[in-house]
């Protein structure tokens, strides 16, 4: 074999080191002021980004600049500041649309978080009256499909909807390996199904769920599809046109943005057909005492003064992530996940919930330590500066599926390092020593 064919042969298999988009983690960390903090004399090891991410200086500066120089209400003031604030707010909408491949900025509805985005869609169903688009009519005999892997925010709104309308709630199960069980897809999603709403990446198991086959089946039977992408949009490139879904929800604070700002993306034609949820200022066309008509989307779904600075901050977060590159973020986390899974599976008595291979999963790893409660694990880790999430992670049914009331969860982001995973492993050693 000549060296030429060997070189060519190398490129036919796994991507090589040089093929993978990369960034300088130390440089990224320098953007996040909080990462220099110490906890009890230990450097902060922040492994709770699935809960909320830290914020880079670039976002904090935009927030301060907005309040210091451009603050005014949007869409109703004729003065200069009002115009600047409106431009900044609508500019953020356009940035976010580009970030997820939406065809127009009008498909981006600002909410306060993912929960509100999912509630918004759930409340749009079940309105009586012939004037309501049949896709949003729901009653006895109709079915809503979710999964056992959902965050409470993608369970409870649908339970409430089904209680209100008499529709039936059904769900996908989870396999022992922590994957979505789609073996009964054709039976579960059927002609009675009106909407399928499920999580793109699990906040407990880290599992990245399939989209193509589920969307194909749902659309075949005339059902809509909504994705909870709260744990996906921050960590990997997401393109709503590629996904071919109908709605997608995510939140700003998990992707380097401020709290209090979330996003509902919906296909323009669907948002147009969707009845309003919250009533108030800015969402109307005209108001008379006898009744009102409503503004076109997205304004129809943004009653009252919106989170203006927060939207602008999320726009800055999107600029920041784009400057690093979402492909690079995904690869960075994939490598961290492989490293962490290797290290954690070596620990005696440690059980991982979810896929144990770094394929089809993100950088969120939940585990149990034999006989030691997660609260105790989290407390001892905190004493060494390691911040993890403990509890049911707002996904109690997922925990129940694996027979535990709570888990310990470590989650990574673009600023996480392998040294921090080493600190986690050392901390787990301390936990085992104390409770042995």
């Amino acid at each position, binding site marked *: 074999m000549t060296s030429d064919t060997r070189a060519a042969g190398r490129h036919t298999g796994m991507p090589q080191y040089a093929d993978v988009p990369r960034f300088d983690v130390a440089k990224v960390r320098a953007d996040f002021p909080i990462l220099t903090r110490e906890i009890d004399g230990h450097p902060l090891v922040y492994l709770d980004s699935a809960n909320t991410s830290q914020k880079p200086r670039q976002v904090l500066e935009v927030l301060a600049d907005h309040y210091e120089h451009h603050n005014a209400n949007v869409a109703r003031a004729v003065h200069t500041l009002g115009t600047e604030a409106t431009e900044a707010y609508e500019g953020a909408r356009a940035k976010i649309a580009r970030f997820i491949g939406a065809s127009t900025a009008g498909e981006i509805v600002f909410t306060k978080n993912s929960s509100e985005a999912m509630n918004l869609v759930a409340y749009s169903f079940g309105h009586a009256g012939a004037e309501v688009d049949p896709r949003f009519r729901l009653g006895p005999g109709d079915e809503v499909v979710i999964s056992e892997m959902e965050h409470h925010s993608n369970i409870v709104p649908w339970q409430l909807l089904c209680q209100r309308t008499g529709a039936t709630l059904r769900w996908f199960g989870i396999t022992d390996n922590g994957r979505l069980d789609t073996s009964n897809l054709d039976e579960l999603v059927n002609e009675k199904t009106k909407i399928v709403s499920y999580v793109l990446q699990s906040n407990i198991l880290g599992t990245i769920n399939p989209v193509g086959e589920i969307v194909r089946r749902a659309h075949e039977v005339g059902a809509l599809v909504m994705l909870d992408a709260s744990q996906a949009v921050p960590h990997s490139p997401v393109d709503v046109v590629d996904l071919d879904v109908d709605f997608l929800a995510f939140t700003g604070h998990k992707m380097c943005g401020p709290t209090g700002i979330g996003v509902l993306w919906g296909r323009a034609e669907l948002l147009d057909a969707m009845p309003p949820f919250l009533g108030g200022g800015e969402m109307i066309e005209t108001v008379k005492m006898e009744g009102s008509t409503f503004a076109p989307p997205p304004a129809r779904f943004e009653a009252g003064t919106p989170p203006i600075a927060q939207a602008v901050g999320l726009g800055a977060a999107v600029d920041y992530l784009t400057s690093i590159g979402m492909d690079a973020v995904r690869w960075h986390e994939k490598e961290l996940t492989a490293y962490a899974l290797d290290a954690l599976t070596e620990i005696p008595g440690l059980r991982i919930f979810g896929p144990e291979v770094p394929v089809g999963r993100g950088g969120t790893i939940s585990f149990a330590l034999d006989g030691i*409660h*997660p*609260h*105790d694990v989290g*407390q*001892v880790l905190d004493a060494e500066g390691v911040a993890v999430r403990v*509890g*049911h992670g707002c996904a109690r049914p997922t925990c129940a599926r694996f027979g535990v009331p709570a888990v310990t969860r470590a989650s990574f982001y673009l600023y996480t390092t392998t040294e921090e995973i080493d600190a986690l492993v050392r901390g787990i050693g301390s936990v085992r020593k104390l409770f042995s």
Partner: protein
Amino acid sequence: MQLDSLYQEIILDHYKHPHGRGLREPDTAAGQAEPHVAEAHHVNPTCGDEMTVRVHLTGDGDKARVSDVSYDGMGCSISQASASVLHDLVSGRTLDEALRLHEAFNELMTGRGQVEPDEELLEDAVAFAGVARYPARVKCALLSWMAFKDAAARATAETAGGN
């Protein structure tokens, strides 16, 4: 903050070797007065910890006595150890004494580490003084004690109803 102040030896001992664990039926051997039995199930929604506490109350009014406190549940070392201490401290006391203990323990736990515990009254429970400095863990320590208070109130209502 020092982890030792939270995970005192006494707490870890009670956690690893709990006293009086498991829900018990009243002892109905000959000559024993039939106690009033009531239980309460409390949940800590932030972590999913659960605790059922059952109280046997013998006698009425001033003479009411907590003849047994039994419990079952799952949770962290703090919540499990505090249930074990609750059993030790409260079983056999008059209801008045038991509720005074509850009050003292509650005051200690919600005192943000500023309350000097009465060691004579609280015995092993003084080990939880350090927990009061960890706001996220105060609920763990109080879980069984709050369930006890509820169960005792229900048992008392039953004695009142029985008269």
